[in-house]
């Protein structure tokens, strides 16, 4: 085939090639019937703008190379089948003729291996199918280098399409009949609003009451542990921390009520500097701070009594217990709110009121409520 009749662009000149038209007139059924399959293949490709430049033939039929490649592909496919079969045996056979698949946390035998075996067998089956296909394409298919033309947009298409569109618009007369256009624009806008209006069902007023500023704590509510037991002074060692909840229904799962009751050591007591106006919030050597981080709301949990610091594990804000839980490092900007506590008649810890400020993360109008 000479370069003149090659369909498509010439790489040397870097110009787009000609487009191709309908071939049925040029190729009668008789003519096509007289062509070899490979010629038909190339002919069709040329009509799609594709030219096969170069073919590296596959290994010769019957040659050692071909036999080796065929063997490799067959081994890969065979292994894939074996793995798939093994998957079925493990999956169905467990609890039938094999031990039970259900995992008992004490068991380190078959049930602990069940999921790994499923992964191994299914993974093996799928990977070997893929490997076999790769080997087949690389070793047994002819390596063809084809080149396809890339067409830029056609000026003819642009001009005719624009004429069709603009002609249609002219016929509607919208540019002239302005009243129709305007009323349609109005209707369209209003309809759009109507269609998104039901999303209003999602909107709720967050400022009704003060949901972000209040918790379950109130005057006289006992401080209890997760299991509901109340706490007396003397239950805790000096220097220790206990997480407490309000003694109300569901108090131990409430999102914002979790509180840390900390008993300070005597040397800590000497250095205690509560926030302004909150010096009477503690009771004796006990102080109670909100456990909800003022940064992103994670429970601050790690209390290092040597440094009197509480660390939030999410973003590592650190709060100094001796300075009214003031943030001393990290991204938090506000102190953990302190819960005013005292003892009730029976000698158990109770809250004197709710937190006097919002607990948890900062928000836009927090200071206003």
């Amino acid at each position, binding site marked *: 085939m000479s370069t003149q009749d090659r369909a498509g662009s010439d790489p040397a000149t870097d110009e787009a090639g000609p487009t191709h038209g309908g071939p049925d007139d040029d190729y009668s059924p008789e003519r096509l019937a007289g062509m070899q399959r490979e010629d038909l293949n190339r002919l069709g490709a040329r009509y799609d703008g594709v030219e096969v430049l170069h073919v590296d033939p596959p290994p010769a039929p019957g040659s050692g190379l071909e036999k080796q490649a065929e063997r490799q592909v067959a081994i890969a496919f065979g292994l894939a089948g074996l793995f798939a079969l093994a998957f079925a045996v493990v999956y169905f056979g467990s609890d039938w003729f094999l031990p039970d698949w259900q995992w008992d946390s004490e068991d380190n035998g078959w049930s602990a291996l069940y999921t790994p075996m499923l992964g191994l067998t299914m993974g093996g089956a799928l990977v070997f199918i893929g490997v076999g296909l790769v080997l087949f394409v690389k070793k047994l298919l002819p390596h063809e280098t084809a080149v396809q033309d890339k067409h830029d947009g056609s000026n003819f298409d642009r001009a005719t399409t624009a004429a069709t569109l603009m002609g249609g618009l002219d016929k509607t007369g919208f540019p002239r009949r302005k009243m129709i256009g305007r009323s349609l624009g109005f209707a369209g806008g209003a309809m759009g609003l109507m269609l998104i209006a039901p999303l209003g069902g999602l909107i709720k007023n967050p400022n009704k009451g003060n949901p972000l500023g209040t918790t379950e704590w109130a005057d006289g509510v006992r401080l209890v542990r997760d299991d509901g037991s109340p706490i007396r002074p003397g239950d805790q060692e000096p220097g220790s921390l206990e997480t407490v909840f309000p003694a109300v229904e569901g108090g131990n799962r409430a999102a914002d009520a979790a509180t840390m009751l900390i008993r300070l050591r005597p040397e800590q007591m000497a250095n205690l500097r509560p926030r302004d106006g909150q010096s009477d919030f503690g009771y004796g050597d006990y102080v109670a701070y909100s456990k909800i981080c003022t940064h992103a709301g994670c429970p601050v949990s790690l209390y290092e009594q040597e440094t009197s610091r509480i660390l939030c594990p999410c973003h590592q804000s650190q709060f100094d217990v001796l300075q009214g839980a003031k943030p001393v490092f990290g991204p938090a900007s506000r102190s953990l709110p302190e819960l005013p506590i005292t003892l009730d008649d029976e000698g158990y810890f109770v809250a004197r009121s709710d937190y006097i400020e919002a607990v948890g993360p*900062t928000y836009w109008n927090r200071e206003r409520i």
Partner: protein
Amino acid sequence: MATAVAPGQPATKIGKAATEIDERLIVAGPLRRTLNKVFPDHWSFLLGEIALYSFVILLLSGTYLTFFFDASMAEVPYQGSYAPLRGVEMSQAYESTLALSFDVRGGLFIRQIHHWAALLFVASIVVHLLRIFFTGAFRKPRETNWGIGVVLLVLALLMGVTGYSMPDDLLSGTGLRIISAILLSIPVIGTWAHWAVFDGDYVGDAIIGRFYIVHVLIIPAIILALIAVHLLLLIKQKHTQFPGPGRTEHNVVGNRLFPAFAGKATALFFIVFGLCAALGGLVQINPIWLWGPYNPAQVSAGSQPDWYIGFLDGSTRLMPAWDINLPGNYTIPALFWPTVVVAGAMFTVLALYPQLERKLTGDTASHHLLQRPRDVPVRTSVGVMALTFYGVLWMSGGNDVIADKFDISLNAMTWVGRIGMVVLPPVAYMISYRICLGLQRHDREVLEHGIETGVIRRLPSGEFIEVHQPLGPVDEHGHGQLTYAGAPVPKKMNQVGGARRAVKGFFSPIEQPSQVELASQQERRGLAAAEADEPVGSGRPSEGGRPSEGGRPQDPRD
């Protein structure tokens, strides 16, 4: 009756069936055009395919999981087969996730495949995006497809976040709490947005059901539609390709879809699926039964989000405590900047990058040939700079783990991140810029002087020279006349046929050594071919010298 069929009429059964179909659907033409479509051949063009195949795996495994998952936050006592949690109060979401892990045959396996495929999905999207970025494949006319790709990445992240929150274990609940705080931190509308998403204050009883429908219907439907547009545009605009012999702005050189490319693509699908299956079975991921049900008062230290959220965790840790207090007692919380603003800015810049580059370079032409990263040092260095910034944030997302394992102060790690995210990106820019220029110069040097052969020759005058192999015709000074055309330049003798091909066969040769030798000589490349017909001169390339003698082992390898 004659048995011969008329011309154009099929004789075989399959042929007749195909004709019947085509008479109704007229698919022969479009099918032939599809089969003939040429795909350029380069490994980096498969990265997007990995993302596509991971998405298919996600759809299959995710659909299976919906048969068992119950997105309800109603509290139930656990009665299932995992003894350590029996009797514990938990949400039905967590209970059903435990049930599908322990009481559904193979359920844990599918759940872990789903999680691994999700990690792979985001990872392959990111690596695919980097390939597109560093080779300039986003340039006109492909800006739209770049934009769709960025939207797909954001949707993939949202899929990850919603999916991660659904099991309602302690880890996912902690993540949900942070999502709640981020919503609250938005100025003006924060509390309203939170109330709209959570149906009230944190945590309420609606959020998991809402995340569920977003995760299994809304986002997957959008992703499917966008993938369809992404691929249609790709077919319409055809592939980009690296510059090389015969490759121009007006053609695509490679393999036709059928059979070579189809075979490779199918193989890749099975290999990706197989790796996900193997990971899903062999490598445990997110063992939710160890974390326990969500409890607002509990948290586990050292817990990490999925890898693709790590950079936001890091930026949040590094951000100083800078609340902005506005007149009227309004506050913009510090949390707003490292989450909403950093993520929003990153993805906005990413989406607009093709337009930015067009504006800054003034290059408005269409491009179908890719650029090697070294040839566009500014873009490459900007990309490396952005990656370094991302890398510092990402590393800081795990700075507590690093501090713990390497016994470093946690606060020191935070400061390393704070300083690093400002100082390291410009340094990375300068280093990659120099590397790009160095690589460019080396390409030109090899084109001009040839490949170093490692052969030192002593000339009659006593001068020692290293023999260079020119890559093409040389002028009277021995300088190569090839110009750089954006394609890789061979740098080693073996890349130009310096070594003969080994004879194939594992246990015993399956080829005749003499035939291999003959074939390599017939290819007329490399030194063996050159030896056959080149005269011996002084040894200087300019005088027709040849570099071969002594340049490679003289003993026959076969």
